[in-house]
């Protein structure tokens, strides 16, 4: 699959977006502004965590994906999905029924991503043993890796240089097919993603040159397709397809799924806003005496992924039950000849720090901008209302020194300027329309938003 610079999986549907401030306030990197009545995402800052999608009251955000029709381009079609997918389905639906439905939808081979998890465990352990500075940070969640890269550049060297599980699983699937005499050219690997971050990571990989996945399937779409064709009872025995699956693999993407392999010297944090707090502390040197830090962007790990259907806690519960039916992962990977090729592939290149939050590459200019932003902040009301189209007063001041906003964007300042007769009412109205769109302030009883939908 071709990879793209600055690719993001999350897009805004300009027709659906009503230009409220929910997403803007929820974004952990302040990447969203409202312009012309719609949300605009700053590609440099976005880490594809999907919090905007969760916060949106009108489903205006969508996730880029490939359609199942692409399957027909390949003779052999591999469904590669993380174990959390199975956890979404109600107890009455067995994993065998899900596997059969996938075959019915046109896949010829099925692999759960976490099958070669012992290779990952082994490699991370080796990295921990050899690490000069600890704690090592998991590279599992692509949203977190991007967050560290842009917002915590001093911590990139703590990220374990191992590949993402889906990439490793794709290598594994390709090798397994090769052993059956199936060539790579005839094979399409379709990765079923539980979230936008993993989708973006496939199109724009970190720590490697090229992703080995051929197509990206949106898990919530696939869920609906499966439900449409699923049989009420199992017809065939598909358990052979799952014989490499382990308890550790099934638990890997849930909270403590990775950390539990470093008992006593590890910590697991889920939810990107919680992760931000821990990374702040780690930068201060306040997270001592740990070997391994598991950080996941979604609450309840991938069970809370934005492309999952159903409740995250129920999904975790089902997966924990499911895992108990599987054996634990092999501990001594060295002896397994099967894994030799994977152990070559598991290593990733180190991740370079980004300086996304820098005000200017020229330090003198950056300092001047900082001073200017401070002076602007004296004028702003510190209400953080978002009526300017920026998430808070601080962000607006920074936008101003970067030339992408002006003083009159603040409605309170603009009001003052009007009272002081510095700007006309017409001009002020135009300014508001620049941010919130035309006719936004006309009376309209059917206006969407602003209705406490959450209560």
């Amino acid at each position, binding site marked *: 699959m071709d990879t793209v610079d600055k690719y993001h999986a999350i897009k805004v549907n300009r027709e659906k977006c009503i230009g409220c401030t929910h997403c803007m306030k929820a974004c952990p990197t302040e990447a969203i502004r409202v312009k012309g009545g719609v949300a605009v995402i700053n590609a440099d800052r976005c880490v594809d965590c999907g919090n905007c999608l969760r916060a949106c009251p009108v489903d205006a955000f969508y996730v880029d994906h490939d359609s199942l029709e692409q399957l027909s381009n390949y003779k052999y079609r591999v469904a590669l999905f993380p174990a959390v997918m199975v956890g979404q389905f109600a107890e009455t639906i067995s994993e065998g029924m899900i596997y059969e439905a996938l075959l019915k939808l046109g896949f010829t081979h099925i692999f759960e991503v976490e099958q070669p998890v012992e290779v990952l465990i082994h490699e991370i352990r080796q990295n921990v043993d050899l690490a000069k500075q600890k704690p090592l940070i998991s590279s599992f969640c692509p949203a977190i890796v991007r967050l560290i890269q842009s*917002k915590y*550049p*001093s911590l*990139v060297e703590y990220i374990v240089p191992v590949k993402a599980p889906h990439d490793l699983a794709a290598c594994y699937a390709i090798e397994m097919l090769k052993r059956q005499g199936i060539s790579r050219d005839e094979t399409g690997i379709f990765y079923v993603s539980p979230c936008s971050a993993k989708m973006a990571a496939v199109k724009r990989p970190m720590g490697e040159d090229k992703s080995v996945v051929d197509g990206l399937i949106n898990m919530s779409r696939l869920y609906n397709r499966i439900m449409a064709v699923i049989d009420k009872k199992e017809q065939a025995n598909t358990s052979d397809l799952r014989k490499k699956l382990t308890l550790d693999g099934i638990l890997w993407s849930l909270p403590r799924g990775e950390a539990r392999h470093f008992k006593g010297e590890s910590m697991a944090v889920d939810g990107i806003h919680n992760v931000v707090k821990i990374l*702040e*502390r780690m*930068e*201060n*040197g*306040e997270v001592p005496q740990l070997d391994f830090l598991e950080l996941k962007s979604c609450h309840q790990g991938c069970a809370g992924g934005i492309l999952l259907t159903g409740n995250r806690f129920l999904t975790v519960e089902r997966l924990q039950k499911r895992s108990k039916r599987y054996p634990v992962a092999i501990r001594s990977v060295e002896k397994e000849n099967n894994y030799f090729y994977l152990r070559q592939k598991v290593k990733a290149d180190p991740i370079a*720090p980004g*300086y996304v*939050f*820098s*005000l*200017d*590459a020229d*330090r*003198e200019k*950056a*300092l001047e*901008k*900082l*001073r200017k932003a*401070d002076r602007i902040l004296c004028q702003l009301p510190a209400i953080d209302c978002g009526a300017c189209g920026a998430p808070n007063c601080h962000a607006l001041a920074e936008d101003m020194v970067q030339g992408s906003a002006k003083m009159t964007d603040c409605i309170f300042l603009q009001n003052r300027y009007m009272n002081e007769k510095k700007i006309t009412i017409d001009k002020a109205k135009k300014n508001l329309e620049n941010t919130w769109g035309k006719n936004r302030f006309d009376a309209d009883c059917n206006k969407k938003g602003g209705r406490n939908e959450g209560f």
Partner: protein
Amino acid sequence: MTLEFNIRRGDFATVGKASSRIKKVLKQLQVDAKVIKRIVVAIYEAEVNVAAHSEGGRIKATINAHQVAVEVIDDGPGIDDIEQAMQAGFSTASKEVREMGFGAGMGLPNIKKNTDKLSIESEPGVGTVVRFCNNF
């Protein structure tokens, strides 16, 4: 530019505010990540020192295009023997402070390790001034 922070005696909840704020500014100035890490650890240690050992004080950070210089001024009680305080593991921290996970005697040694220049002036009964700076 200059940033100033007050730290009250025994108020560990505010410890970390100065280092976090200064860190944000240094990132906006695109200072090298490794340089940021060192100075931030030093400032954090200084914050803990003021909260744990002094009657309260303030931190003043002056940032220009080439360096960050930090001045930590407290209102007493002062350090009796600076040389001894600089030794790794030496601590006069109270039982309460130790129970909170501070007071391991690594504060000043850690500041020295993470800064380019460090000076300490102290007058028993009056207070201590710690100055350190890192070049970019």
